[in-house]
């Protein structure tokens, strides 16, 4: 596990972001919570969310102060691993994979996702780019479609041909 710089300002940014989110939710609560139910207040649906949001806001205040008033000493390095380029690209592939399930179907999208991801991660042999994805496709098909009988909608591309 990489050693994390505990004094990194990224911790403060994250804390402040949560605090900001809590503040927005706190302000928006009367509009996004239907509180027309029973009185008194403690029986209503607002009391608990308000307590938790207030706690979040209170505990994020020191970080907000640090971010605004100690900008000159800010350090934005988190660990030795640098910018998470690989994680972001794989996450993008994953999001495309989900869209792919609806667009081109489960089997094709699993194959493309695994083979492209492994190729990107540097595993560029025939075994990893072709055979491994094929085996995974078969396993996923067997587990989810054959064994569990999970329903997947007809892919859009097939719907086009059917029409």
């Amino acid at each position, binding site marked *: *596990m990489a050693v*994390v710089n505990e004094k990194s300002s*990224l*911790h403060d940014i*994250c*804390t402040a972001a*949560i*605090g900001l989110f*809590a503040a927005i*939710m706190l302000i928006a609560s009367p509009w*996004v*919570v*239907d*509180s027309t*139910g*029973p009185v*008194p*207040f*403690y*029986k209503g*649906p607002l*009391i*608990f*969310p308000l307590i*938790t*949001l207030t*706690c*979040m806001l209170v*505990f*994020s205040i020191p970080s907000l102060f640090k971010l605004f008033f100690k900008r000159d000493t800010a350090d934005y390095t*988190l*660990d030795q*691993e640098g910018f*998470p380029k*690989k*994680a972001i690209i*794989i*996450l993008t592939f*994953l999001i495309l*994979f*989900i869209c792919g*399930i*609806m667009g081109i179907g*489960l089997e094709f999208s*699993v194959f493309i*996702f*695994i083979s492209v*991801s*492994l190729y990107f*991660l540097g*595993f560029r042999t025939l075994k*990893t780019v072709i055979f*491994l994805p094929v085996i*995974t496709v078969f396993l*996923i098909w067997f*587990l*989810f479609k054959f064994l*569990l009988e*999970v*329903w997947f909608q007809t892919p859009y591309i097939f719907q086009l041909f059917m029409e």
Partner: protein
Amino acid sequence: MFEYMPEAIAAAFSVANLIALVSGTFLGIVVGIMPGIGPMVGMVIILPFTFSMAPNIALSLLLGVYCGGYFGGAVPAILMRTPGVPSSLITSFDGFPLTQRGKAQTALSAALVGSFCGGIISIIILFFLARFLTHFATKFGSPEYFAVGFAGVVLVVMSSRKHLTRGVLLLCFGLWLSTVGIDSLTISSRYCFGILPMQAGLNIVPVCLGLFGIGQTLLLVERKILKSGQIQLTQRTLDFSKLIVAFKYWKTLIKSGVIGTVLGLLPGFGSIMASFLSYQEAKRSSDNPEQFGKGTPEGCVAAEAGNNAVPAGAMIPLLTLGIPGDALSAVLMGVFTINGIYPGPLLLTKEPVLINTLYLSMMLINIFAFLMLALWLRPFAMIVKIKTSILAVMIMAVSTIGIYAVNTSIFDVCVAMTAGILGYIFLRMQWPVVNLVVGIVLGTILEEKLRESLSIFEGNFLLFFTRPIPLAVAIMTGLLIIFPFVMKLIQKNKKISNILNI
């Protein structure tokens, strides 16, 4: 007490249950051995498959992964100084020096005996303590439940007191997330923003799958490939003569088992703390404390017995009060509730056969894990050579489809994606993600009990302290909060007085 045992024995030894136990334990050992994956990822991957199973089979499978993971974690810790599960780090303190001296067999035997005995001791404690606590918990009303739940929340926060702000923030975030959806008491919509699927609330399954199945695997793709060339095991199996030698530390085994169980039942402390305290206690009471850290089998025995006692310990608050102490038992709670079984004081009287089957299954898991590792040590150790980034990509694909399969819902997949991104950020920054999961699970219980209690007390919060159990729990919680600070102050004073004396 034992009247339901014949039925439980029949259920535990049924072919389906045995298959679930063996496969769960096998998978648990495999994911435990792989550094960075661990039992949590293993459990969330198989979670979608358990929904079509009978509750006892589903629980056996998941418990197999849960307990098996702790068994497996010691192997890379001893052979490569790379813990498979975080708590096995303590095992590596003595395990790796033994390996360097060519005594890997001795270290692995000690760790395996420690895991086995820790597991068995904790199940025996679970068996008796759960009955006692259930009897006690039947007298609980809403204020008592709230007090215990709140104490649990405080303990979770205290376990991350080194970074109190982060711990509180994630816990409160989890508690707030539990309020999203339709409020069960007033049937009013909360924070749904007009999105229809959000009215059902955030399901714990996609959240856990996202946080650990996607978040953790995104971390793995960033990780450098592990150097596993140093693994050298001459024998395929463990040497049984060395296994017997490890039993000579029976006092350490019992003490560590008890410490692990006690820490397991306290929410938030987890296996690392159990392993560390067991190790420290073994070192303190040992005849050769100077050997600790240089390579003594007793260190491996203590650390492993401590961490393997945690799963059964964590089951105690879950089964008796319906309060999960960690993320893994929160997942188990999800399996219970999906099957219409609600953990709490009435569970032992309503489902006695299931609970006794659960105890027996946990015993069997320990036996199976012990035998599997003892007989197939070398093949299991070679699993470390599998490249984790290849596995990470496959886990991501299976997890994503698994999330969809639970409710055939794209909304769940979107929830898991968001949880995955948050999980990656928090895990990378080493924030206590467990607090978030515990918050989501405990939030519903806490809110319900708080509002019921306030209704009883007509809004007067101070009336909580007029009832004996909430008052006792509040005092104990207060002491637990103050204790570390007082200890710190005493140590500081000691240091100052020492300096002045010099």
